[in-house]
């Protein structure tokens, strides 16, 4: 024991007299470890604490405080009490000691055994003896932190202090300037307000001391280490100011005053603060200021050029209205909401009836904001506005005016979450239902495209609110839409009509089944062009196209799919039968529509079942017949045997199969595999096929059959992973054989993709490894034989297998990708090998993507890039001059597909190579590099800034490239560079402006357009009023 006290005395001596700061930590460690107690420390300090030298006393208190900061949790209640009494007393001591005293008190305030009454006594002496604002930054922060921790632990005691506590805080904080401390001060003020401390006569003082910072204008210093943002300060202050209705009488005039300011940020902040007040305020607080607030909000929304101010103004108006809607009515006063809305209506309503003038829009937005705030306000506003709007609509005759009126109307009928009728209330639009419908129908019957589009929007909105369209009106609406699908040539109108039909069909499928689908079907199959029909002058194809698109769009419910899909299938079978007038484009668009319907199966099981039972077998039957027929007769080949149509059918089948439930999916897999392996046609309709159809045999003349493998791929490669494909080994063997030996490009590519799709999903293990190794061996043997006729086939299979393995992180993937890398130097396959990296890195639409349940690990691209980029750079450096471009091409394919974050982090290393690629004569390389650079330039990494000279000279040279796309992308890059910090790019301004004068006279308009916008921005750079 004695040894320890000697040791302690030594440590204290070294700290106090020897000025060795590190001894404090040693003492703290000793106290923590129990070698000596706090009492012993005080005893050891003894003389230093009572010394007549203020410096020595300071050192003594400092040591004590530093130790306490470490070990306040181990003190007993009695020790705390004594220490607090000591520290309180020291507050009166020399000013140089105060900082250490505050630190000690702060540590003690955190203690859990703080004796009752000591919190109050600490604060009393603090407020009495310390002038907080004369302290340094760190000590002020110490005081605030002490307040915060006492408010957390001793709330009841502090409240006992009454208004003195608030007054003390107000005095302490008055004049604070540092943003770090302000955040703490705002936190204390917020606690005072929200936790119910007694403000009484100091309400105004507390408001004054915080509101003097409003609105906050703070720009953090460059490379700010504290990371305090203006936004943080604004939100902290707002929660203080808007926290209590007792501030209302001071805050509202302040807001009105700040709204008059010229600074946009002040306006926005004021409006947002006003909106934040609404939830706590009532009518009582607002009443006096409503006219002033309203006129400020109106002025801002009417005059502003800034969308931020406008939307903040509208939100504030909405919040005010919401607040008034909540206020309780008393029998002797007027309805506050009604009075306020009358004010709004008086100022805005008349502008609605001047649809040509500018103020119609801001007025409408204001009224709509008030209308959408609550159910009560929507009752008042719609009752005032809608009849007059409908009246105006019928009295105006110009389409543009009617359109404006209808757009305004649309804003009023859109439901908002807060104005939705509650249980038992009915829609506010119900009284106007009939006149709304008749207005919409009359607008749909107009010839103006804009008016029709707006009318479809209104119709959609009406249709989505229950009870607003009666049965007969739905039917009328469907008739109008059908007529527009058949007759309307304007692409935008058709699009709007189809969208509207799609959304109405969800709620009212029956009307579409009975009225629209039959009419469209009739039109699709009507062969003769009747001169008397309204469709005269239009091409038959365009009408059919619209009918087909509309059919797909309305197929949202099973009952509709059962009607619409057979129509589309009938088109395909009539195409197959021949003699019909459908063009190739129409056939592919029919396939595309079927795909859109198949997409609905994802959410609705019934639709998936329908595809499984009827649609897919029918499609397979049709294509199989077409294939067999094409083989027999060489003169007439069915359209369904064409590659374009088959490629369009692939997504139909794969989308549908991907959505199948497990049992249906297994059934589908079994049926399709036995069809392709054994020629089992039993599940197909119209059973009239020759026996012994071998679909996976690669005889040279039978490509019409072998290409059907793409449908096999569509089916088995998109099934859920839980489904086992039967006879997998035999299937893989035949697919490998077909893909290696077939000479028909589409067939062997599809076979390779199908093989890859299956490999990707097979369960890992030796069986899979054996198959893959065997295949890779065969590929290697073929590729190594330079004279082999099947090198391209083998290469294609290699690429797809490599992709399948890469996606699932299979250990063998490195073997396959290394083979591709080595082929970059192959004279015959080098260029293909470079392009194959695009296949490896991008999502392929028909197979091996997430929507067909492939095994795709996250970040496989980054991983591939990280493992292989060095090989490319090395290959580039060691390659002959002529073959360098192959490596650049491969690199640009890889980099192009990387996520932007990775691009940014890798760019410094790659930049020299990418710049090299820009001067590579291959246009494809140039284009791909430019399109990779362009997004990076929008937010350029620091590495770029040192290379600007090289970048500019290459980009500007490319603006006169012979290829139009290169010119366009190069100009876009130059445009993007204008957004770099001014000091970096200003030196290039004159040079860029001179260089961009030439493309202004480019022969292509699209190039000129880019040149104009780029040059315009460069002119603004560094020019007054520019940026």
């Amino acid at each position: 024991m004695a040894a320890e006290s000697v040791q302690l005395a030594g440590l204290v001596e070294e700290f106090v007299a020897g000025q060795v700061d590190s001894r404090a930590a040693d003492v703290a460690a000793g106290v923590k470890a129990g070698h000596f107690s706090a009492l012993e420390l005080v005893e050891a300090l003894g003389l230093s604490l009572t010394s007549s030298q203020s410096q020595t006393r300071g050192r003594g208190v400092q040591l004590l405080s530093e130790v306490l900061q470490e070990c306040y949790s181990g003190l007993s209640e009695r020790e705390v009490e004594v220490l607090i009494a000591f520290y309180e007393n020291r507050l009166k001591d020399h000013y140089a000691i105060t900082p250490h005293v505050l630190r000690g008190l702060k540590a003690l305030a955190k203690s859990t055994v703080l004796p009752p009454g000591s919190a109050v006594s600490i604060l009393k002496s603090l407020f009495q003896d310390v002038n907080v604002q004369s302290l340094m930054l760190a000590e002020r922060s110490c005081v605030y932190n002490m307040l915060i921790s006492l408010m957390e632990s001793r709330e009841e005691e502090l409240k006992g202090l009454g208004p003195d506590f608030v007054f003390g805080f107000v005095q302490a904080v008055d004049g604070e300037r540092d943003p770090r401390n302000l955040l703490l001060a705002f936190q204390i003020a917020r606690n005072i307000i929200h936790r119910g401390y007694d403000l009484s006569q100091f309400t105004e003082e507390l408001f004054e001391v915080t509101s003097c910072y409003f609105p906050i204008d703070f720009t953090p210093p460059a490379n700010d280490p504290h990371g305090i943002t203006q936004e943080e300060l604004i939100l902290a202050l707002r929660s203080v100011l808007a926290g209590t209705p007792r501030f209302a009488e001071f805050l509202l005039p302040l807001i009105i005053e700040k709204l008059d300011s010229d600074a946009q940020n002040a306006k926005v902040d004021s409006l947002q603060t006003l909106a934040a007040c609404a939830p706590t305020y009532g009518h009582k607080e607002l009443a006096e200021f409503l006219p002033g607030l309203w006129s400020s909000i109106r002025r801002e929304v009417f005059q502003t050029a800034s969308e931020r101010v406008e939307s903040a103004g509208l939100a504030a108006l909405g919040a005010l209205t919401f607040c008034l809607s909540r206020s309780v009515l008393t029998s002797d006063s007027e309805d506050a909401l009604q009075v306020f809305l009358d004010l709004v209506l008086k100022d805005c309503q008349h502008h609605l009836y001047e649809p040509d003038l500018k103020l119609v829009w801001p007025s409408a937005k204001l009224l709509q904001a008030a209308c959408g705030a609550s159910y009560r306000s929507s009752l008042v506003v719609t009752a005032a506005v809608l009849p007059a709007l409908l009246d105006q609509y019928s009295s105006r005759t110009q389409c543009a005016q009617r359109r404006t009126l209808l757009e305004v109307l649309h804003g009023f009928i859109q439901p908002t979450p807060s104005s939705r009728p509650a249980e038992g209330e009915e829609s506010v639009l119900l009284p106007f239902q009939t006149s709304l419908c008749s207005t919409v129908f009359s607008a749909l019957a107009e010839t103006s495209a804009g008016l029709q589009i707006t009318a479809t929007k209104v119709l959609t909105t009406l249709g989505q609110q229950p009870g607003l369209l009666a049965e007969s009106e739905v039917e009328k609406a469907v008739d109008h839409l059908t007529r527009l699908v058949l007759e309307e040539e304007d692409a935008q109108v058709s699009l709007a009509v189809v969208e509207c039909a799609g959304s109405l069909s969800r709620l009212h499928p029956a009307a579409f089944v009975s009225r629209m689908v039959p009419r469209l079907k009739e039109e699709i199959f009507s062969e003769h062009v009747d001169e008397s029909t309204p469709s005269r002058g239009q091409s038959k194809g365009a009408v059919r196209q619209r009918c087909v698109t509309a059919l797909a769009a309305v197929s949202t419910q099973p009952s509709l799919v059962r009607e619409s899909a057979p129509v589309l299938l009938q088109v395909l079978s009539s195409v197959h039968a021949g003699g019909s007038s459908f063009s190739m484009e129409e056939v592919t668009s029919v396939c595309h529509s079927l795909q859109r319907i198949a997409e609905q199966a994802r959410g609705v099981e019934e639709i998936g079942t329908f595809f499984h039972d009827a649609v897919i077998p029918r499609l397979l039957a049709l294509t199989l017949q077409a294939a067999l027929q094409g083989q027999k007769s060489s003169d007439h080949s069915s359209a369904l045997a064409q590659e374009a149509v088959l490629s369009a059918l692939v997504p139909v089948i794969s989308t549908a199969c991907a959505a199948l439930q497990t049992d249906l999916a297994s059934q589908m897999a079994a049926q399709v595999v036995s069809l392709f392996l054994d020629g089992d046609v039993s599940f197909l309709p119209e059973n009239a096929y020759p026996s012994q159809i071998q679909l996976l045999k690669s005889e040279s003349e039978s490509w019409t059959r072998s290409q059907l493998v793409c449908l096999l791929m569509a089916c088995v490669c998109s099934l859920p992973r839980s489904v086992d494909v039967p006879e997998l080994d035999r299937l893989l063997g035949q697919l490998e054989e077909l893909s290696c030996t077939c000479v028909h490009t589409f067939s062997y590519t599809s076979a390779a993709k199908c093989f890859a799709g299956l490999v990707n999903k097979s369960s890992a293990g030796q069986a899979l490894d054996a198959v893959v190794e065997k295949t890779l061996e065969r590929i290697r043997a073929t590729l190594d034989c330079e004279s082999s006729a099947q090198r391209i086939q083998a290469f294609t299979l290699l690429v797809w297998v490599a992709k399948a393995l890469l996606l699932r992180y299979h250990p063998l993937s490195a073997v396959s990708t290394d083979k591709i890398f080595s082929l970059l130097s192959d004279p015959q396959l080098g260029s293909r090998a470079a392009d194959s990296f695009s296949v490896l890195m991008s999502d392929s639409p028909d197979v091996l993507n997430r929507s067909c349940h492939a095994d795709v690990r996250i970040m496989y691209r980054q991983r591939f890039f990280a493992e292989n980029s060095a090989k490319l750079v090395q290959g580039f450096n060691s390659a002959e001059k002529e073959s360098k471009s192959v490596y650049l091409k491969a690199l640009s394919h890889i980099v192009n597909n990387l996520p932007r974050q990775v691009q940014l982090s890798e760019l410094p290393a790659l930049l020299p190579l990418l710049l090299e690629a820009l001067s590579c004569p291959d246009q494809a390389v140039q284009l791909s590099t430019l399109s990779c650079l362009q997004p990076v330039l929008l937010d350029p990494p620091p590495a770029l800034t040192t290379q600007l000279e090289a970048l500019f000279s290459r980009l500007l040279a490319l603006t006169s490239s012979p290829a139009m796309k290169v010119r366009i992308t190069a100009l876009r890059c130059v445009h993007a560079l204008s957004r770099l910090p001014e000091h970096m790019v200003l030196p290039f301004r004159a040079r860029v402006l001179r260089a961009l004068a030439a493309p202004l006279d480019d022969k292509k308009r699209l190039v000129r357009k880019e040149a104009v916008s780029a040059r315009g921005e460069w002119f603004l750079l560094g020019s007054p009023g520019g940026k």
Partner: protein
Amino acid sequence: MSAATARLENANPHIFQRAGERLLTAGEEDEDVADPIDDREIFDLIRSINDPEHPLSLEELNVVEQLRVNVNDPGSTVSVEFTPTIPHCSMATLIGLSIKVKLLRSLPDRFKIDVHITPGTHASEDAVNKQLADKERVAAALENSQLLEVVNQCLSTRPV
């Protein structure tokens, strides 16, 4: 912002519908076809210029219209007429200057650019036209940094 706080000369002007985007034709995407500079292309250059007073474009205020734009590509001349919203509009010169500067920056050197007020639509039509036609006065105006600032603001693409 000074414009917003001062009284506007015409606080509630008529607004007009914008023309749609120019439709892309197959010819424009074909490398080998030369697209001549036509009226619509010139109109597209100037229609999005901001009005100095309102947050609206010159097209929305009907200050410029496509049928008042004439271009002769082989002859290298462009003529644009613009219509101030009210006959005493004090901004007429500024609007004319903005149009002129926009065309100077966006067209090849070979063009002779003529910007003037639609006859009979402004009180001091001749004076404004004369100013806009005088090369040296236009150049001098752009030396004035305050004027240049307003012109540049009119030509800035609005932040979205």
